[in-house]
Protein backbone atom coordinates (compact mmCIF):
# COMPACT_ATOMS: atom_id res chain seq x y z
CA UNK A 1 0.00 0.00 0.00
CA UNK A 2 2.99 2.32 0.24
CA UNK A 3 3.01 4.65 -2.74
CA UNK A 4 5.67 7.03 -1.50
CA UNK A 5 8.44 7.47 -4.03
CA UNK A 6 12.10 7.68 -3.16
CA UNK A 7 12.17 11.36 -4.04
CA UNK A 8 9.37 12.10 -1.64
CA UNK A 9 11.08 10.12 1.08
CA UNK A 10 14.26 12.14 0.60
CA UNK A 11 12.38 15.45 0.72
CA UNK A 12 10.52 14.37 3.84
CA UNK A 13 13.76 13.27 5.50
CA UNK A 14 15.43 16.55 4.60
CA UNK A 15 12.58 18.61 5.98
CA UNK A 16 12.49 16.64 9.22
CA UNK A 17 16.25 17.14 9.55
CA UNK A 18 15.80 20.92 9.12
CA UNK A 19 13.03 20.95 11.73
CA UNK A 20 15.16 19.00 14.21
CA UNK A 21 18.11 21.32 13.64
CA UNK A 22 16.02 24.45 14.27
CA UNK A 23 14.47 23.09 17.47
CA UNK A 24 17.47 21.30 18.94
CA UNK A 25 20.39 23.47 17.87
CA UNK A 26 19.88 26.19 20.53
CA UNK A 27 20.02 23.62 23.33
CA UNK A 28 23.06 21.94 21.78
CA UNK A 29 24.84 25.27 21.35
CA UNK A 30 24.22 26.47 24.91
CA UNK A 31 25.49 23.14 26.26
CA UNK A 32 28.65 23.59 24.16
CA UNK A 33 29.08 27.14 25.42
CA UNK A 34 28.80 25.99 29.02
CA UNK A 35 31.99 23.92 28.60
CA UNK A 36 34.01 26.78 27.11
CA UNK A 37 36.05 29.57 28.54
CA UNK A 38 35.18 33.12 27.55
CA UNK A 39 38.26 33.07 25.34
CA UNK A 40 36.98 30.28 23.09
CA UNK A 41 33.41 31.62 23.18
CA UNK A 42 34.59 34.95 21.80
CA UNK A 43 36.50 33.37 18.89
CA UNK A 44 35.46 34.37 15.40
CA UNK A 45 34.45 32.35 13.49
CA UNK A 46 32.70 30.24 16.18
CA UNK A 47 33.75 26.61 16.18
CA UNK A 48 32.51 23.41 17.73
CA UNK A 49 36.07 22.31 18.40
CA UNK A 50 37.58 23.45 21.68
CA UNK A 51 39.15 22.08 24.82
CA UNK A 52 36.22 21.46 27.18
CA UNK A 53 36.49 22.90 30.66
CA UNK A 54 34.42 22.35 33.78
CA UNK A 55 35.45 25.68 35.27
CA UNK A 56 32.05 27.30 34.62
CA UNK A 57 30.24 24.59 36.51
CA UNK A 58 32.72 24.50 39.36
CA UNK A 59 32.45 28.29 39.71
CA UNK A 60 28.67 27.98 39.95
CA UNK A 61 28.75 25.08 42.38
CA UNK A 62 31.34 26.55 44.72
CA UNK A 63 29.75 29.97 44.38
CA UNK A 64 33.12 31.62 43.93
CA UNK A 65 34.25 33.16 40.70
CA UNK A 66 37.81 34.44 40.30
CA UNK A 67 37.99 37.27 37.83
CA UNK A 68 40.71 39.76 37.05
CA UNK A 69 38.65 42.30 38.98
CA UNK A 70 38.65 40.11 42.10
CA UNK A 71 36.36 37.50 43.59
CA UNK A 72 32.70 37.45 42.71
CA UNK A 73 30.09 35.66 44.81
CA UNK A 74 27.52 33.65 42.91
CA UNK A 75 24.27 32.70 44.62
CA UNK A 76 23.09 30.57 41.78
CA UNK A 77 22.97 27.28 43.68
CA UNK A 78 20.60 28.95 46.11
CA UNK A 79 18.28 29.74 43.17
CA UNK A 80 18.45 26.14 42.06
CA UNK A 81 17.57 24.97 45.56
CA UNK A 82 14.67 27.46 45.66
CA UNK A 83 13.33 26.04 42.43
CA UNK A 84 13.46 22.50 43.77
CA UNK A 85 11.78 23.52 47.02
CA UNK A 86 9.06 25.70 45.50
CA UNK A 87 8.13 23.27 42.73
CA UNK A 88 8.11 20.16 44.91
CA UNK A 89 6.12 21.63 47.79
CA UNK A 90 3.67 23.40 45.46
CA UNK A 91 2.92 20.17 43.61
CA UNK A 92 2.58 18.23 46.87
CA UNK A 93 0.06 20.75 48.22
CA UNK A 94 -1.77 20.79 44.90
CA UNK A 95 -2.11 17.02 44.92
CA UNK A 96 -3.45 17.01 48.48
CA UNK A 97 -6.03 19.65 47.59
CA UNK A 98 -6.68 18.74 43.99
CA UNK A 99 -7.10 14.96 43.94
CA UNK A 100 -10.10 14.86 46.35
CA UNK A 101 -11.68 17.80 44.53
CA UNK A 102 -11.15 16.11 41.16
CA UNK A 103 -12.78 12.99 42.58
CA UNK A 104 -15.77 15.02 43.76
CA UNK A 105 -16.21 16.64 40.35
CA UNK A 106 -15.95 13.28 38.59
CA UNK A 107 -18.19 11.20 40.85
CA UNK A 108 -20.88 13.51 42.18
CA UNK A 109 -23.33 15.70 40.36
CA UNK A 110 -23.78 18.46 42.88
CA UNK A 111 -25.10 21.97 42.88
CA UNK A 112 -22.41 24.53 42.04
CA UNK A 113 -20.08 21.66 41.16
CA UNK A 114 -19.53 22.72 37.57
CA UNK A 115 -19.37 26.37 38.63
CA UNK A 116 -16.60 25.67 41.10
CA UNK A 117 -14.75 23.55 38.56
CA UNK A 118 -14.92 26.27 35.94
CA UNK A 119 -13.91 28.98 38.39
CA UNK A 120 -10.82 26.94 39.16
CA UNK A 121 -10.14 26.34 35.47
CA UNK A 122 -10.57 30.00 34.59
CA UNK A 123 -7.51 30.83 36.71
CA UNK A 124 -5.51 29.10 34.02
CA UNK A 125 -6.56 31.75 31.51
CA UNK A 126 -6.58 35.04 33.44
CA UNK A 127 -3.60 37.39 33.01
CA UNK A 128 -1.35 36.56 35.97
CA UNK A 129 -0.39 40.17 36.62
CA UNK A 130 -4.04 41.07 37.21
CA UNK A 131 -3.86 39.02 40.37
CA UNK A 132 -0.17 39.47 41.16
CA UNK A 133 0.02 43.25 41.30
CA UNK A 134 -2.73 43.75 43.91
CA UNK A 135 -1.47 40.63 45.65
CA UNK A 136 1.99 42.16 45.99
CA UNK A 137 0.43 45.01 48.01
CA UNK A 138 -1.58 42.56 50.16
CA UNK A 139 1.47 40.38 50.70
CA UNK A 140 3.34 43.38 52.05
CA UNK A 141 0.59 43.98 54.61
CA UNK A 142 0.37 40.30 55.54
CA UNK A 143 4.13 39.88 55.75
CA UNK A 144 4.05 37.20 53.06
CA UNK A 145 6.30 39.03 50.60
CA UNK A 146 9.42 37.01 49.96
CA UNK A 147 8.35 33.94 51.95
CA UNK A 148 8.20 30.36 50.69
CA UNK A 149 4.67 30.01 52.09
CA UNK A 150 3.38 32.99 50.13
CA UNK A 151 5.00 31.75 46.94
CA UNK A 152 3.75 28.18 47.35
CA UNK A 153 0.26 29.53 47.90
CA UNK A 154 0.38 31.57 44.71
CA UNK A 155 1.93 28.68 42.80
CA UNK A 156 -1.37 26.85 43.36
CA UNK A 157 -2.66 29.02 40.53
CA UNK A 158 -0.39 27.07 38.18
CA UNK A 159 -0.59 23.59 39.68
CA UNK A 160 -4.14 23.24 40.92
CA UNK A 161 -6.14 23.75 37.69
CA UNK A 162 -3.79 21.39 35.86
CA UNK A 163 -4.08 18.62 38.44
CA UNK A 164 -7.81 19.10 38.88
CA UNK A 165 -8.65 18.76 35.21
CA UNK A 166 -6.29 15.96 34.28
CA UNK A 167 -7.10 13.82 37.32
CA UNK A 168 -10.81 14.46 36.92
CA UNK A 169 -10.63 13.00 33.41
CA UNK A 170 -8.92 9.88 34.78
CA UNK A 171 -11.51 9.38 37.51
CA UNK A 172 -14.28 9.76 34.94
CA UNK A 173 -12.74 7.03 32.80
CA UNK A 174 -12.79 4.52 35.68
CA UNK A 175 -16.07 2.68 36.03
CA UNK A 176 -17.68 3.45 39.42
CA UNK A 177 -18.89 -0.17 39.64
CA UNK A 178 -15.74 -1.39 41.38
CA UNK A 179 -16.11 1.33 43.98
CA UNK A 180 -19.78 0.45 44.51
CA UNK A 181 -18.91 -3.19 45.02
CA UNK A 182 -16.23 -2.27 47.55
CA UNK A 183 -18.62 -0.03 49.45
CA UNK A 184 -21.33 -2.65 49.53
CA UNK A 185 -18.76 -4.98 51.10
CA UNK A 186 -18.95 -2.66 54.07
CA UNK A 187 -16.08 -0.24 53.56
CA UNK A 188 -16.32 3.43 54.34
CA UNK A 189 -16.22 6.07 51.69
CA UNK A 190 -12.72 7.11 52.70
CA UNK A 191 -11.37 3.56 52.41
CA UNK A 192 -12.92 3.23 48.97
CA UNK A 193 -11.32 6.46 47.85
CA UNK A 194 -7.93 5.56 49.25
CA UNK A 195 -7.76 1.87 48.33
CA UNK A 196 -9.69 1.73 45.05
CA UNK A 197 -10.13 5.10 43.35
CA UNK A 198 -6.70 6.63 43.93
CA UNK A 199 -4.65 3.54 42.99
CA UNK A 200 -6.65 3.12 39.79
CA UNK A 201 -6.15 6.77 38.81
CA UNK A 202 -2.47 6.68 39.81
CA UNK A 203 -1.07 7.01 36.25
CA UNK A 204 -3.12 10.17 35.79
CA UNK A 205 -2.14 11.55 39.16
CA UNK A 206 1.54 10.91 38.46
CA UNK A 207 1.30 12.52 35.03
CA UNK A 208 -0.51 15.57 36.36
CA UNK A 209 2.02 15.88 39.17
CA UNK A 210 4.98 15.74 36.79
CA UNK A 211 3.46 18.30 34.46
CA UNK A 212 2.54 20.60 37.33
CA UNK A 213 6.13 20.32 38.52
CA UNK A 214 7.46 21.33 35.10
CA UNK A 215 5.10 24.30 34.87
CA UNK A 216 5.90 25.43 38.40
CA UNK A 217 9.62 25.15 37.68
CA UNK A 218 9.31 27.14 34.46
CA UNK A 219 7.26 29.93 35.98
CA UNK A 220 8.87 33.33 35.91
CA UNK A 221 6.47 36.14 36.67
CA UNK A 222 5.18 35.01 40.09
CA UNK A 223 8.56 35.04 41.75
CA UNK A 224 9.70 38.09 39.79
CA UNK A 225 7.01 40.10 41.57
CA UNK A 226 6.71 38.38 44.96
CA UNK A 227 10.27 37.29 45.82
CA UNK A 228 13.62 38.94 46.26
CA UNK A 229 17.02 37.46 45.54
CA UNK A 230 17.26 34.90 48.33
CA UNK A 231 13.92 33.22 47.52
CA UNK A 232 14.02 33.46 43.74
CA UNK A 233 13.90 30.33 41.57
CA UNK A 234 16.27 29.79 38.65
CA UNK A 235 14.09 31.48 36.05
CA UNK A 236 14.32 34.83 37.81
CA UNK A 237 17.75 34.13 39.24
CA UNK A 238 19.26 33.52 35.81
CA UNK A 239 18.08 36.89 34.55
CA UNK A 240 19.53 38.62 37.59
CA UNK A 241 22.70 36.59 37.10
CA UNK A 242 23.04 37.84 33.52
CA UNK A 243 22.77 41.43 34.74
CA UNK A 244 25.23 40.87 37.60
CA UNK A 245 27.94 38.84 35.90
CA UNK A 246 27.79 40.82 32.68
CA UNK A 247 30.33 39.23 30.43
CA UNK A 248 30.87 35.83 32.06
CA UNK A 249 29.19 34.12 29.14
CA UNK A 250 30.43 30.64 29.97
CA UNK A 251 28.90 30.79 33.43
CA UNK A 252 25.66 32.19 32.06
CA UNK A 253 25.43 29.26 29.67
CA UNK A 254 26.25 26.78 32.45
CA UNK A 255 23.58 28.38 34.66
CA UNK A 256 21.02 28.03 31.88
CA UNK A 257 21.97 24.39 31.33
CA UNK A 258 21.59 23.60 35.04
CA UNK A 259 18.25 25.42 35.06
CA UNK A 260 16.67 23.66 32.12
CA UNK A 261 18.17 20.19 32.64
CA UNK A 262 15.66 19.02 35.31
CA UNK A 263 12.54 19.85 33.27
CA UNK A 264 13.99 18.46 30.06
CA UNK A 265 14.92 15.22 31.82
CA UNK A 266 11.44 14.95 33.33
CA UNK A 267 9.85 15.69 29.98
CA UNK A 268 11.76 12.89 28.30
CA UNK A 269 10.93 10.57 31.16
CA UNK A 270 7.21 11.39 31.14
CA UNK A 271 6.74 12.17 27.47
CA UNK A 272 3.83 9.88 26.86
CA UNK A 273 1.68 11.83 29.33
CA UNK A 274 2.61 15.21 27.98
CA UNK A 275 0.17 15.39 25.09
CA UNK A 276 -2.81 14.70 27.23
CA UNK A 277 -1.67 16.89 30.07
CA UNK A 278 -0.80 19.86 27.89
CA UNK A 279 -4.22 19.86 26.27
CA UNK A 280 -5.87 19.42 29.69
CA UNK A 281 -6.98 16.02 28.46
CA UNK A 282 -8.72 17.38 25.39
CA UNK A 283 -7.12 14.78 23.13
CA UNK A 284 -6.30 11.26 24.14
CA UNK A 285 -2.60 10.61 23.48
Amino acid sequence: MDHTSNLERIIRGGLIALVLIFFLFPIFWIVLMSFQTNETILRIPPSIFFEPTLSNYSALITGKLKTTAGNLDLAFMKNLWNSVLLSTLSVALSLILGVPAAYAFARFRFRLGEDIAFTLLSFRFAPPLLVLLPLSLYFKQLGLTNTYIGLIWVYQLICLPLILWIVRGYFEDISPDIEHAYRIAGNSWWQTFRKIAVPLAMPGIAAAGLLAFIFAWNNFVFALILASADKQPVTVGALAFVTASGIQYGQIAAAIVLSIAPTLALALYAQRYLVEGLSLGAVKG
Partner: protein
Amino acid sequence: MTAAAEHMPRPKTSSRFLRRSLPYLLSLPALIVCIGILIPFFTAVYYSLLRFRLNLPALKGFIWFDNYLNFLTDAAFWNTVKISLVYAGLTVGVELLLGLGIALLLQKPTRFNNLASILLLLPLMTAPALAALMWKLMTNPNFGILSYLVSLLGFTNFKWASDPSTALLTVTLVDVWVYTPFIMILLLAGLRSLPKAPFEAAALDGVPRSFVFFRITLPMLLPYIITASLFRLLDSIQQFDIVYSMTQGGPGDTLMVFQVQSYLEFFQYTNVGRSAALLIVLWAITYFLSNIFIKQWLKLRERAHGVA
Protein backbone atom coordinates in the same frame (compact mmCIF):
# COMPACT_ATOMS: atom_id res chain seq x y z
CA MET B 1 -6.88 -4.05 44.50
CA THR B 2 -4.68 -6.36 46.49
CA ALA B 3 -5.94 -4.38 49.43
CA ALA B 4 -9.36 -5.95 49.06
CA ALA B 5 -8.18 -8.98 51.00
CA GLU B 6 -7.46 -7.08 54.19
CA HIS B 7 -10.75 -5.27 54.39
CA MET B 8 -12.72 -5.40 57.59
CA PRO B 9 -16.49 -5.26 57.43
CA ARG B 10 -17.48 -2.03 59.05
CA PRO B 11 -20.89 -0.47 59.51
CA LYS B 12 -21.68 2.41 57.18
CA THR B 13 -21.14 5.49 59.26
CA SER B 14 -22.03 8.08 56.66
CA SER B 15 -25.28 9.79 57.52
CA ARG B 16 -27.47 11.39 54.93
CA PHE B 17 -26.01 14.76 55.82
CA LEU B 18 -22.46 13.58 55.31
CA ARG B 19 -23.35 11.99 51.98
CA ARG B 20 -24.85 15.23 50.79
CA SER B 21 -22.05 17.45 51.92
CA LEU B 22 -19.22 15.14 50.89
CA PRO B 23 -18.65 16.64 47.42
CA TYR B 24 -18.47 20.12 48.94
CA LEU B 25 -16.11 18.97 51.68
CA LEU B 26 -13.87 17.47 49.03
CA SER B 27 -13.74 20.43 46.69
CA LEU B 28 -13.85 23.29 49.19
CA PRO B 29 -10.21 23.19 50.33
CA ALA B 30 -9.10 23.67 46.74
CA LEU B 31 -11.59 26.48 46.31
CA ILE B 32 -10.63 28.22 49.54
CA VAL B 33 -6.97 28.28 48.57
CA CYS B 34 -7.99 29.97 45.34
CA ILE B 35 -10.43 32.39 46.95
CA GLY B 36 -7.50 34.22 48.45
CA ILE B 37 -6.53 34.78 44.87
CA LEU B 38 -10.00 35.88 43.79
CA ILE B 39 -9.88 38.78 46.21
CA PRO B 40 -6.95 40.47 44.44
CA PHE B 41 -8.95 40.22 41.24
CA PHE B 42 -11.73 42.35 42.68
CA THR B 43 -9.14 44.64 44.19
CA ALA B 44 -7.72 45.13 40.72
CA VAL B 45 -11.15 46.09 39.40
CA TYR B 46 -11.43 48.62 42.22
CA TYR B 47 -7.92 50.00 41.66
CA SER B 48 -8.72 50.52 38.01
CA LEU B 49 -11.37 53.06 39.08
CA LEU B 50 -8.96 55.02 41.25
CA ARG B 51 -6.44 57.73 40.77
CA PHE B 52 -3.78 55.78 42.64
CA ARG B 53 -0.07 56.43 42.44
CA LEU B 54 2.19 54.81 44.99
CA ASN B 55 4.51 57.82 45.00
CA LEU B 56 1.67 60.33 45.46
CA PRO B 57 -0.63 58.72 48.06
CA ALA B 58 -2.32 62.04 48.85
CA LEU B 59 -3.87 62.21 45.41
CA LYS B 60 -5.64 58.85 45.82
CA GLY B 61 -9.31 59.12 44.94
CA PHE B 62 -12.23 57.53 43.18
CA ILE B 63 -12.49 58.70 39.58
CA TRP B 64 -14.92 56.19 38.05
CA PHE B 65 -13.89 55.30 34.53
CA ASP B 66 -11.39 58.09 33.92
CA ASN B 67 -8.49 55.64 33.61
CA TYR B 68 -10.34 53.86 30.84
CA LEU B 69 -11.56 57.07 29.16
CA ASN B 70 -8.00 58.37 29.15
CA PHE B 71 -6.99 55.31 27.15
CA LEU B 72 -9.15 56.43 24.23
CA THR B 73 -6.89 59.37 23.51
CA ASP B 74 -3.66 57.76 24.71
CA ALA B 75 -1.23 56.85 21.94
CA ALA B 76 0.77 54.59 24.29
CA PHE B 77 -2.36 52.55 25.02
CA TRP B 78 -3.20 52.06 21.37
CA ASN B 79 0.41 51.14 20.73
CA THR B 80 0.09 48.45 23.40
CA VAL B 81 -3.14 47.13 21.87
CA LYS B 82 -1.59 47.08 18.44
CA ILE B 83 1.66 45.40 19.50
CA SER B 84 -0.15 42.77 21.56
CA LEU B 85 -2.50 41.88 18.73
CA VAL B 86 0.29 41.83 16.16
CA TYR B 87 2.44 39.72 18.45
CA ALA B 88 -0.36 37.23 19.15
CA GLY B 89 -1.45 37.05 15.52
CA LEU B 90 2.06 36.71 14.17
CA THR B 91 3.29 34.08 16.64
CA VAL B 92 0.15 31.94 16.52
CA GLY B 93 -0.06 32.23 12.73
CA VAL B 94 3.52 31.09 12.20
CA GLU B 95 3.26 28.40 14.87
CA LEU B 96 0.06 27.04 13.35
CA LEU B 97 1.49 26.75 9.85
CA LEU B 98 4.77 25.32 11.07
CA GLY B 99 3.11 23.02 13.61
CA LEU B 100 0.69 21.67 11.01
CA GLY B 101 3.53 21.12 8.55
CA ILE B 102 5.63 19.23 11.09
CA ALA B 103 2.64 17.17 12.26
CA LEU B 104 2.00 16.13 8.65
CA LEU B 105 5.69 15.23 8.22
CA LEU B 106 5.63 13.05 11.33
CA GLN B 107 2.16 11.62 10.80
CA LYS B 108 3.21 8.02 10.20
CA PRO B 109 3.87 6.42 13.61
CA THR B 110 7.28 5.01 12.71
CA ARG B 111 9.93 4.66 15.37
CA PHE B 112 11.98 7.51 13.91
CA ASN B 113 8.98 9.86 13.71
CA ASN B 114 8.01 9.11 17.30
CA LEU B 115 11.54 9.79 18.47
CA ALA B 116 11.59 13.07 16.53
CA SER B 117 8.29 14.20 18.04
CA ILE B 118 9.60 13.45 21.53
CA LEU B 119 12.77 15.45 20.90
CA LEU B 120 10.67 18.34 19.62
CA LEU B 121 9.03 18.56 23.04
CA LEU B 122 12.27 19.82 24.56
CA PRO B 123 11.87 23.50 23.57
CA LEU B 124 8.35 23.44 24.98
CA MET B 125 9.67 22.21 28.30
CA THR B 126 12.28 24.98 28.47
CA ALA B 127 11.19 27.88 30.66
CA PRO B 128 10.28 30.70 28.22
CA ALA B 129 12.26 33.20 30.28
CA LEU B 130 15.35 30.97 29.99
CA ALA B 131 14.71 30.32 26.30
CA ALA B 132 14.83 34.07 25.77
CA LEU B 133 18.23 34.16 27.52
CA MET B 134 19.50 31.33 25.32
CA TRP B 135 18.52 33.23 22.19
CA LYS B 136 20.02 36.37 23.66
CA LEU B 137 23.35 34.58 23.92
CA MET B 138 23.01 33.30 20.37
CA THR B 139 22.19 36.75 18.99
CA ASN B 140 24.88 38.60 20.93
CA PRO B 141 26.58 41.00 18.50
CA ASN B 142 30.09 40.02 19.67
CA PHE B 143 30.04 36.24 19.62
CA GLY B 144 26.49 35.06 18.94
CA ILE B 145 26.36 32.18 16.51
CA LEU B 146 23.29 33.60 14.78
CA SER B 147 24.86 37.02 14.41
CA TYR B 148 27.82 35.28 12.81
CA LEU B 149 25.61 33.23 10.48
CA VAL B 150 23.63 36.24 9.23
CA SER B 151 26.87 38.15 8.76
CA LEU B 152 27.90 35.39 6.32
CA LEU B 153 24.69 36.17 4.43
CA GLY B 154 25.76 39.81 4.17
CA PHE B 155 23.86 41.30 7.13
CA THR B 156 26.96 42.48 8.93
CA ASN B 157 25.21 44.83 11.33
CA PHE B 158 22.11 42.84 12.19
CA LYS B 159 21.11 43.89 15.73
CA TRP B 160 18.28 41.42 16.46
CA ALA B 161 16.36 42.41 19.59
CA SER B 162 18.15 45.71 20.12
CA ASP B 163 17.02 47.23 16.83
CA PRO B 164 13.39 48.47 16.70
CA SER B 165 12.95 47.15 13.17
CA THR B 166 13.98 43.56 14.02
CA ALA B 167 12.99 43.30 17.72
CA LEU B 168 9.54 41.91 16.96
CA LEU B 169 11.06 39.39 14.57
CA THR B 170 13.50 38.23 17.24
CA VAL B 171 10.97 37.69 20.03
CA THR B 172 8.63 36.03 17.55
CA LEU B 173 11.45 33.65 16.69
CA VAL B 174 11.87 32.73 20.37
CA ASP B 175 8.10 32.31 20.82
CA VAL B 176 7.94 30.13 17.71
CA TRP B 177 10.85 28.07 18.98
CA VAL B 178 9.19 27.44 22.34
CA TYR B 179 5.55 27.00 21.36
CA THR B 180 5.42 25.45 17.87
CA PRO B 181 5.88 21.99 19.43
CA PHE B 182 2.71 22.57 21.45
CA ILE B 183 0.59 23.01 18.35
CA MET B 184 2.52 20.24 16.63
CA ILE B 185 1.78 17.58 19.26
CA LEU B 186 -1.91 18.52 19.51
CA LEU B 187 -2.32 18.32 15.74
CA LEU B 188 -0.27 15.13 15.56
CA ALA B 189 -2.55 13.52 18.14
CA GLY B 190 -5.51 14.80 16.12
CA LEU B 191 -4.15 13.49 12.82
CA ARG B 192 -3.45 10.06 14.23
CA SER B 193 -6.94 9.81 15.74
CA LEU B 194 -8.76 10.49 12.45
CA PRO B 195 -10.77 7.54 11.09
CA LYS B 196 -8.94 5.63 8.36
CA ALA B 197 -11.90 4.82 6.09
CA PRO B 198 -12.24 8.10 4.14
CA PHE B 199 -8.51 8.09 3.35
CA GLU B 200 -8.53 4.49 2.16
CA ALA B 201 -11.54 5.17 -0.02
CA ALA B 202 -9.86 8.25 -1.50
CA ALA B 203 -6.66 6.27 -2.18
CA LEU B 204 -8.62 3.50 -3.93
CA ASP B 205 -10.40 6.06 -6.11
CA GLY B 206 -7.09 7.70 -6.99
CA VAL B 207 -8.17 11.08 -5.63
CA PRO B 208 -5.32 13.64 -5.93
CA ARG B 209 -3.51 14.26 -2.65
CA SER B 210 -4.08 18.01 -2.57
CA PHE B 211 -7.80 17.29 -2.81
CA VAL B 212 -7.59 14.77 0.02
CA PHE B 213 -5.71 17.31 2.15
CA PHE B 214 -8.07 20.25 1.62
CA ARG B 215 -11.34 18.33 1.50
CA ILE B 216 -10.81 15.51 4.00
CA THR B 217 -7.80 16.04 6.28
CA LEU B 218 -8.20 19.74 6.95
CA PRO B 219 -11.97 19.76 7.68
CA MET B 220 -11.64 16.75 9.96
CA LEU B 221 -8.68 18.29 11.75
CA LEU B 222 -10.38 21.67 12.13
CA PRO B 223 -11.65 21.21 15.72
CA TYR B 224 -8.07 20.41 16.79
CA ILE B 225 -6.71 23.37 14.87
CA ILE B 226 -9.23 25.72 16.47
CA THR B 227 -8.59 24.39 19.97
CA ALA B 228 -4.82 24.62 19.64
CA SER B 229 -4.90 28.12 18.13
CA LEU B 230 -7.31 29.51 20.71
CA PHE B 231 -5.23 28.03 23.51
CA ARG B 232 -2.11 29.64 22.09
CA LEU B 233 -3.84 32.96 21.36
CA LEU B 234 -4.92 33.15 25.00
CA ASP B 235 -1.33 32.66 26.14
CA SER B 236 0.29 34.73 23.46
CA ILE B 237 -1.77 37.88 23.97
CA GLN B 238 -0.61 37.76 27.60
CA GLN B 239 3.03 37.07 26.74
CA PHE B 240 5.35 38.44 29.39
CA ASP B 241 8.28 36.11 30.08
CA ILE B 242 9.91 36.15 26.66
CA VAL B 243 9.48 39.86 25.98
CA TYR B 244 10.54 40.87 29.48
CA SER B 245 13.66 38.66 29.56
CA MET B 246 14.67 39.65 26.07
CA THR B 247 14.13 43.43 25.96
CA GLN B 248 11.86 44.55 28.85
CA GLY B 249 9.50 45.97 26.23
CA GLY B 250 12.16 47.91 24.37
CA PRO B 251 13.87 49.21 22.40
CA GLY B 252 11.76 52.28 23.11
CA ASP B 253 8.16 51.11 23.15
CA THR B 254 8.54 48.62 20.29
CA LEU B 255 7.49 45.60 22.33
CA MET B 256 5.24 47.12 25.01
CA VAL B 257 2.71 44.30 25.11
CA PHE B 258 -0.08 44.47 27.71
CA GLN B 259 1.54 42.71 30.63
CA VAL B 260 4.98 44.27 30.18
CA GLN B 261 3.41 47.73 29.93
CA SER B 262 1.32 47.24 33.07
CA TYR B 263 4.30 45.78 34.94
CA LEU B 264 6.37 48.87 34.16
CA GLU B 265 3.38 51.14 34.84
CA PHE B 266 3.16 49.58 38.31
CA PHE B 267 6.78 49.24 39.36
CA GLN B 268 8.54 51.96 37.39
CA TYR B 269 5.90 54.70 37.22
CA THR B 270 4.02 53.44 40.32
CA ASN B 271 0.75 54.29 38.60
CA VAL B 272 -1.41 51.55 40.12
CA GLY B 273 -4.74 52.78 38.74
CA ARG B 274 -3.58 52.92 35.16
CA SER B 275 -1.77 49.59 35.43
CA ALA B 276 -4.90 47.91 36.79
CA ALA B 277 -7.11 49.42 34.08
CA LEU B 278 -4.72 48.11 31.42
CA LEU B 279 -4.91 44.62 32.89
CA ILE B 280 -8.71 44.74 33.06
CA VAL B 281 -8.79 45.54 29.34
CA LEU B 282 -6.50 42.56 28.72
CA TRP B 283 -8.66 40.41 30.98
CA ALA B 284 -11.78 41.36 29.00
CA ILE B 285 -10.08 40.22 25.80
CA THR B 286 -8.91 36.93 27.33
CA TYR B 287 -12.29 36.32 28.97
CA PHE B 288 -13.98 36.61 25.61
CA LEU B 289 -11.42 34.27 24.01
CA SER B 290 -11.44 31.78 26.87
CA ASN B 291 -15.21 31.37 26.75
CA ILE B 292 -14.99 30.39 23.11
CA PHE B 293 -12.06 28.17 23.95
CA ILE B 294 -13.72 26.32 26.82
CA LYS B 295 -16.80 25.57 24.71
CA GLN B 296 -14.66 24.30 21.87
CA TRP B 297 -12.49 22.31 24.22
CA LEU B 298 -15.44 20.61 25.96
CA LYS B 299 -16.81 19.58 22.58
CA LEU B 300 -13.47 18.03 21.65
CA ARG B 301 -13.12 16.39 25.04
CA GLU B 302 -16.56 14.82 24.79
CA ARG B 303 -15.65 13.49 21.37
CA ALA B 304 -12.32 12.07 22.53
CA HIS B 305 -13.98 10.41 25.51
CA GLY B 306 -16.85 9.16 23.37
CA VAL B 307 -14.43 7.41 21.04
CA ALA B 308 -12.29 5.99 23.84
